[in-house]
């Protein structure tokens, strides 16, 4: 019996040694560099959380992306199919990586919209870059994705909304100059978005001599009683970069309940007039109300017709802009390649030079020369009025 066991063990080890030595053998052929005709149906993929805790973000982006493809593709003379990939935040980066492999391997996918979450971008940007696939995110705002090391901030990643390094300081500056804040409490939720924003804002506040107190709680917390108790009675502002507007509303209510005078200042994640409507609070967003632009009227009306009953949120329009940029780049690559896209990298090369006049987010859109971020992006500050509307104040 013992001898048999040794034989079996030796066999197993031998097999594994053989296997291991084949490791490092030449990888299989790659199908990314084959030409695709622009007359055939091209595909762009939207990678965003469609289900799970952040599902409402993804669904909004999907509805606008669908609308964008429907109205713009014909204008550019392209036949486009929109694929949707679900990356629920509860599953970490794994779904995003699986989807990246899927889209990289499909040669008719010429551009990717997203990934929507900064974590998913960090996990898959190198894959997309190696494959030469342009990925344009409508919502991933982590600073290091465009300003970090080359391995993290790849040349194939673009975003149509400004990063945390714009939002944090712009919020902080508003607090200092317009609100005369002397003491600010900053809260983060132990996930990439809020930590990045809070860090950026805190740095600016500290530099300008404002007393800052940093608190942190889990993203799953919904009862903030003890956190509210820790807010000093003389604090002016509580910076609350949550992605759940209901939490901002609850926090503000609990502040009132415990008699604190501090006001809530939310980031773009709390931008939701029907959920966060506490009078006197502030919200920042990367775009003013898009219905304020005359040229957007027809656009919004068309979208509303396709999506009856849906409310106009802030996560959707950037997805439309991302579609616009992507289609523009594809068209340019098609023209330069005489009716076919010889290499997906041609699309990447053409994204940076895109200019969109009268973009949906207001003004003309172009990329900055120094990074793959929008040029001269700024954040807009709103204050919530007593009738629940958001008024632009900064």
């Amino acid at each position: 019996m013992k001898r048999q066991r040794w034989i079996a063990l030796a066999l197993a080890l031998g097999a594994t040694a053989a296997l291991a030595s084949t490791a490092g053998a030449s990888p299989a052929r790659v199908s990314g560099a084959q030409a695709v005709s622009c007359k055939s149906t091209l595909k762009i993929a939207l990678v965003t959380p469609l289900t799970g805790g952040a599902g409402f973000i993804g669904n909004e982006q999907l509805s606008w992306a669908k609308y964008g493809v429907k109205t713009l593709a014909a204008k550019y003379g392209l036949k486009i199919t929109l694929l949707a990939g679900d990356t629920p935040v509860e599953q970490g980066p794994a779904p995003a990586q699986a989807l990246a492999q899927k889209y990289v391997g499909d040669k008719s996918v010429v551009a990717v919209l997203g990934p929507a979450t900064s974590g998913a971008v960090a996990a898959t940007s190198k894959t997309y870059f190696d494959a030469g696939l342009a990925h344009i995110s409508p919502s991933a705002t982590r600073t290091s994705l465009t300003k970090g090391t080359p391995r993290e901030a790849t040349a194939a990643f673009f975003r149509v909304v400004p990063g945390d390094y714009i939002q944090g300081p712009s919020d902080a500056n508003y607090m200092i100059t317009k609100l005369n804040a002397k003491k600010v409490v900053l809260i983060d939720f132990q996930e990439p978005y809020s930590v990045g924003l809070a860090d950026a804002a805190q740095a600016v506040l500290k530099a300008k001599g404002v007393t800052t107190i940093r608190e942190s709680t889990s993203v799953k917390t919904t009862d903030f009683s003890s956190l509210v108790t820790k807010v000093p009675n003389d604090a002016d502002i509580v910076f609350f970069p949550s992605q759940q507007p209901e939490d901002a509303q609850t926090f503000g209510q609990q502040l009132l309940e415990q008699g604190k005078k501090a006001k809530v200042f939310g980031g773009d994640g709390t931008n939701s007039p029907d959920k966060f409507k506490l009078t006197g609070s502030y919200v920042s967003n990367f775009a003013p109300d898009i219905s304020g632009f005359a040229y957007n009227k027809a656009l919004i009306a068309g979208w509303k017709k396709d999506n009856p009953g849906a409310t106009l949120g802030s996560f959707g329009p950037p997805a439309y802009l991302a579609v616009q940029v992507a289609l523009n780049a594809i068209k340019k690559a098609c023209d330069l390649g005489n009716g076919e896209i010889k290499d997906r990298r041609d699309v990447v090369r053409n994204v940076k030079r895109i200019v969109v006049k009268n973009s949906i987010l207001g003004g003309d859109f172009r990329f900055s020369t120094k990074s793959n971020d929008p040029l001269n992006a700024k954040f807009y500050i709103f204050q919530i009025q007593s009738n629940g509307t958001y008024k632009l104040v900064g």
Partner: protein
Amino acid sequence: MDTFIQLTLNGLTLGSVYALIALGYSLVYGILKLLNFAHGDVFMVGSFIGFGALQLLGGSTDPIVPVWLLLILITLAAMAGCAVLGVAIERFAYRPLRDAPRIAPLISALGVSFFLAYSVQLMFGSQQRDYDAFSLDGGVLFLTGFNIGNVRVPLLRIVIILSAFVLMVLLWLLVTKTRTGKAMRATSYDREAAAMMGIDIDKVIVFAFVLGSALAGAAGVMFALRAPTAATIGFIAGLKGFTAAVIGGIGSIPGAMAGGLILGFAEAFTQGYISTRWSDLFVFVILIAFMLLRPQGLFGKADIKKV
């Protein structure tokens, strides 16, 4: 000093909710020696049922009945719904496994917990649901109340703490003064002997689940009146409830109440005075210490197993 009072108040409010959840754990464990992992998710379902009832009655901005009646109705709805749910869980997920190896009902409970949490997500989405009790009657629940020093004690908190207390007293009376309660206690001492004395074990177990789940439902509504609820809160709530039950002595009713309050205070004070970031960690460490050093908790009896 104000901070201390406020934190005590926080602890009391939190603790009442934890105590109600812990009672459910204790009741079931006392009889079945089974940790009902799904209990936290029953709590979560209770908060959703309350939300549904609230919407049916007009929502928080325009309710069709006065505020006090509204609160009673949604709490009763949640309690009834959760009782039914608890009975169903016992009947289909635990009863077939009553004679199976100990590990089997535990794994089944894990499955039920998971199933409940994601079923709610499937049906209602994963967005948070806000009772928005602040808007009820112009904020009367939050803004009126009495003052201790500089700290205002809002009406809502008083209501929550008192109702939790009332429910616990009712439960204690049920268990000590009625015959069914006596049957429950007998079953928890020795199931076979109780069966031989003519007690209907199945009925007793169902009764325990009904009580425990109803309390969890009430706790769900009380929690959700103050903070938004989501399909994911069941897991952590269950953990905390279980911690409270163990600290107080699992299987003991006054123990569950005490454990809940102690946990509530511990959480509020660690968050307030030490750090919100690591407060969960502290609580877990406290629990592990309890389980290793005094597993019977504060009020429980040391478990001597007859071989």
